């Protein structure tokens, strides 16, 4: 009996203390971040490189409302005021979890168009390779969308997930839309087995005549659609990620033009912390008259990732890139990415 009394007393004391602590931290805010620093050999010389300094904030404002913010500091040679560094608000999302696994999100998002953009964001410590796939240089889509979204995940036996987003779209700014047209993104995925995800997505937008995107002024109104598909498997031993993206641009003067980009990544965990990997990328532009690039590219890279811990990763990578116009290039890069 005495033992039970003592145990109860101890339990009661801890409950009281926990209650007091909860009062203090009613709003639960956490700040984390990611940094990557590296070095590369290109143009026959060694270059030390500072990557991105990413601050990541989450805050629980109430039982159902939370905030997520991601701000990146990166080098920008055009910015002399802050010693060549520019600040970018990459994500600022207010999340209202209205029912079960369903949420309403408003703010600036990473466009949930493909696996990479919706999974790794700016956290280089999560990237399986040093950098992003070539599609991120292709101007196929805007990485960010400011707007409103409905999101759900892990629904049913197949762990179905969806994202339906309406935003300002290409050519607009974070603070206002440049035209009356809205971008619509619809993405769905399933997880039919442990660590396996299969997804498809669709993006529809209209770029107005005169809009400026990727520093290019648009001469004629462009109707565009993007179709993407992805398969990923990140198991204990093997890693596989494949994505394909088809872009259809339609203008009254030229008609429909398709461009295509894809990549395939594979890795194998040899020991707990060592992962050799390889990735091939491919971009083909059919539409060479608009804001898109004109240089068809292919790339092969092979590297070795050493995961010191979940917060510290070192990668060493060789990449060969061949552009139809820019020619071929070799580079060796090493990166030390951390989370804190």
């Amino acid at each position, binding site marked *: 009996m005495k033992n039970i009394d003592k145990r109860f007393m101890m339990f009661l004391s801890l409950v009281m203390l926990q209650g007091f602590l909860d009062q203090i931290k009613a709003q639960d805010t956490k700040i984390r971040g990611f940094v990557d620093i590296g070095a590369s050999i290109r143009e026959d010389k060694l270059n030390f490189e500072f990557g991105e300094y990413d601050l990541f904030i989450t805050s629980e404002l109430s*039982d159902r409302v939370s905030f997520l913010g991601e701000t990146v500091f990166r080098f920008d040679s055009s910015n002399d005021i802050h010693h060549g560094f520019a600040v970018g608000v990459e994500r600022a999302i207010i999340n209202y979890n209205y029912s079960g696994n369903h949420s309403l999100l408003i703010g600036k998002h990473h466009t949930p168009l493909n696996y990479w953009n919706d999974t790794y964001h700016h956290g280089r410590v999560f990237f399986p390779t040093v950098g992003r796939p070539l599609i991120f240089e292709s101007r196929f889509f805007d990485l960010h969308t400011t707007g409103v979204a409905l999101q759900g995940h892990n629904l049913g036996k197949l762990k179905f997930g969806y994202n339906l987003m309406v935003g300002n779209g290409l050519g607009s700014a974070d603070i206002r839309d440049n035209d009356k047209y809205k971008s619509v993104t619809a993405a769905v995925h399933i997880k039919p087995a442990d660590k396996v995800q299969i997804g498809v997505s669709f993006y529809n937008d209209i770029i107005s005549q005169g809009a400026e995107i990727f520093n290019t002024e648009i001469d004629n109104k462009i109707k565009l659609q993007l179709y993407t598909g992805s398969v990923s498997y990140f198991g204990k031993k093997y890693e596989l990620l494949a994505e394909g993206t088809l872009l259809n641009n339609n203008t009254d003067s030229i008609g429909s033009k398709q461009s295509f980009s894809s990549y395939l990544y594979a890795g194998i965990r040899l020991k707990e912390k060592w992962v050799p990997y390889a990735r091939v990328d491919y971009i083909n532009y059919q539409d060479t008259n608009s804001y898109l690039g004109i240089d068809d590219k292919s790339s092969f890279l092979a590297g070795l990732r050493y995961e010191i811990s979940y917060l510290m990763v070192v990668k060493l990578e060789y990449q060969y890139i061949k552009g139809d116009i820019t020619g071929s290039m070799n580079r060796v890069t090493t990166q030390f990415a951390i989370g804190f």
Partner: protein
Amino acid sequence: MGRIICNIILAISMGFFLPSSLNAQGNGLMIVANGESIPAEMDMVQLQAVLKGEKLRWNDGSRVSIALMKTTTPVGNNTCEKLYNMSGNELNKYFLALVFQGKVKAPTFFNSIGELEAYVAQTPGAIGVLPESKESLLKIIIVDGKPQI
């Protein structure tokens, strides 16, 4: 009165500073929870889905709050292996990635079993993993027909 105050201080100190391994009875684990709508029985697949953050709310709308011992403690390490089939490092990476994607709220990690028990008792919708024990003042979830895993 002085004795009660001493007891409270002692209890708090024990809860916070005793290594969790001293409280553990063996290698087994048990699942405790706070909430009427939390199922009294689950199978392992359901439990793992909950603990992996795949369920955000219970049927009554209360939020699922996951309470775990830190992965560096023996109980936390045991939890990673038995319930997540991951190492502590993999578990931390798993949840950091999900939080970064904005998909879940990270579990709350504790240094001591007393703290974890108190958190579950204080938080409606909380579910936590403790070392096996014959008694608990919290609701014990039966997993695959057994009170201990």
